């Protein structure tokens, strides 16, 4: 495969894309797990499907539609979360199903041969284009810098947003900004792993890292490393035995989490007995 990597541009793109994706997911994944925003991220991801459909129907780049829809979903869900409180999960469910339904409807209305949607649902990292690399690079830069530059603010906000507010932090802005970052992440990931598998890539590396360290910074770093290992190994495996790359990466990540979880549980039991 190493030789093929030098020969084929699409493989190089695939590796660059998965490297950048691992960085985004490592950072955002740790944050959404701590802030309990995993389902909300799932809602945003699935709502974006409506945008993909609209793009096909009206003839513009589907990823732009996905971007618009996921930003709208982020603001919609964020607003209702701030206002309503307990009804958030209901609203997520509504956005989730509405987005999917609109996507399917728009595509059905699109004249001519139906476009290949499975690449948006399940992703195809081997079909990543140079324009996708540019998009993912921009999102990576935005995510990395907005988290790094305000790292201490984010940490205090994630631990206790009420206290951060009392200290004069703009926590309402941070609420929305975080959801926008999630929306950007989703858009960047759609081409790589697809809408359905976005959640797994956001959660599995971060959750695995959470089993191993209880320091915030280390958790992010470890989560990025896990992401890189999972996606490189998954890519290699899918290339060697010719299976779907996105699915392989996700199955590997979840398997790794389960194995780590079992090892840790067993360890705890042994320690408890001693």
């Amino acid at each position, binding site marked *: 495969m190493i030789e093929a990597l030098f020969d084929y541009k699409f493989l190089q793109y695939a590796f660059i894309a998965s490297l950048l994706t691992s960085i985004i997911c490592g950072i955002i994944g740790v944050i959404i797990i*701590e802030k309990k925003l995993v389902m909300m991220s799932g809602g945003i991801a699935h709502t974006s499907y409506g945008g993909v459909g609209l793009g096909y129907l009206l003839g513009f780049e589907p990823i732009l539609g996905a971007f618009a829809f996921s930003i709208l979903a982020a603001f919609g869900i964020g607003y209702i979360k701030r206002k309503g409180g307990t009804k958030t999960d209901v609203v997520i469910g509504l956005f989730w199903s509405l987005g999917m339904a609109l996507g399917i409807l728009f595509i059905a209305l699109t004249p001519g041969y139906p476009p290949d949607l499975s690449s948006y649902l399940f992703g195809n990292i081997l079909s990543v284009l140079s324009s996708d690399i540019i998009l993912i690079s921009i999102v990576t830069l935005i995510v990395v810098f907005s988290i790094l*530059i*305000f790292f*201490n*603010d984010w*940490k*205090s906000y*994630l*631990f*206790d947003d*009420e*206290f*951060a*507010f*009392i*200290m*004069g*932090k*703009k926590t309402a802005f941070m609420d929305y900004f975080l959801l926008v970052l999630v929306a950007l992440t989703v858009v960047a990931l759609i081409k790589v792993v697809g809408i359905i598998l976005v959640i797994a890539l956001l959660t599995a590396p971060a959750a695995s890292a*959470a089993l191993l*360290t*209880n*320091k*915030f910074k280390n*958790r992010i770093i470890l989560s990025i490393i896990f992401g890189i290992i999972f996606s490189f190994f998954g890519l290699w495996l899918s290339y060697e035995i010719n299976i779907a790359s996105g699915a392989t990466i996700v199955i590997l990540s979840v398997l790794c989490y389960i194995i780590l979880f079992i090892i840790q549980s067993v360890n705890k039991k042994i320690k408890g007995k001693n």
Partner: protein
Amino acid sequence: MTPQLIITNLSVNYGNIDALTDINLTINKGEYLGIIGPNGGGKSTLLKAILGLIPYQGKIEKIGENNTARISYVPQYTTMDRKFPISVLEVVLCGKLKSGFAPFFKYSNADIQNTLNILEKVGLKGYENRQISNLSGGEFQKMLIARAIVSNPEILLLDEPTANIDKNACSNIYQLINDLNKNITIILVTHDLFAVSENIKKIACLNRTMVYHGEPKLNEEIIDKLYGCPVDLIAHGIAHRVLSNHKELQK
């Protein structure tokens, strides 16, 4: 007696439910006010309104030495995420955050030194590098108090600081709050009526509206009045306890 906090005609509602109606309360500088009342009586709501965390009608004036008083808060520790990956020092340093957007903000050495001193003051010396998931309830509570002190407040609000904490740690925490009261105005929400009779100089009984505000010596006349009021919902046991404590004092 200079007023520190003046609350005028404060009302808070959640949808159709009136959580608080028409609260009028003046708290003087250096006061130690205990707020008691039944669950759902609006105690935490009052604290959150004072902090500006929730919308309200009416007026809340925080009068400090220069303009608005610096205010800080010790939340109910049971509502916090105790598994969050953060160390004691990092939590307490949050009291040194700059307000607004502060790009590339780093805590200074002076901040860290001051924080370590305050950790020592609350009895958490040597705990600074521990992760919060390894703290007991009492230690966690002390850490939250330390975080509030670090922000150098003129008014300190505490929400049930001794709920679910063992007796030893409790008296520790009350001792600490007493010490803080020398320089800071304190408002404490509590179920612990022992704390009320021992340390607190004034109490406010809250059940959606202010039922009683004054000295913590509940004589029988006031108890009668309280029983006529919605406050008797608190639990009879607790109300009796205040009364009997008081009787013992009189003997």
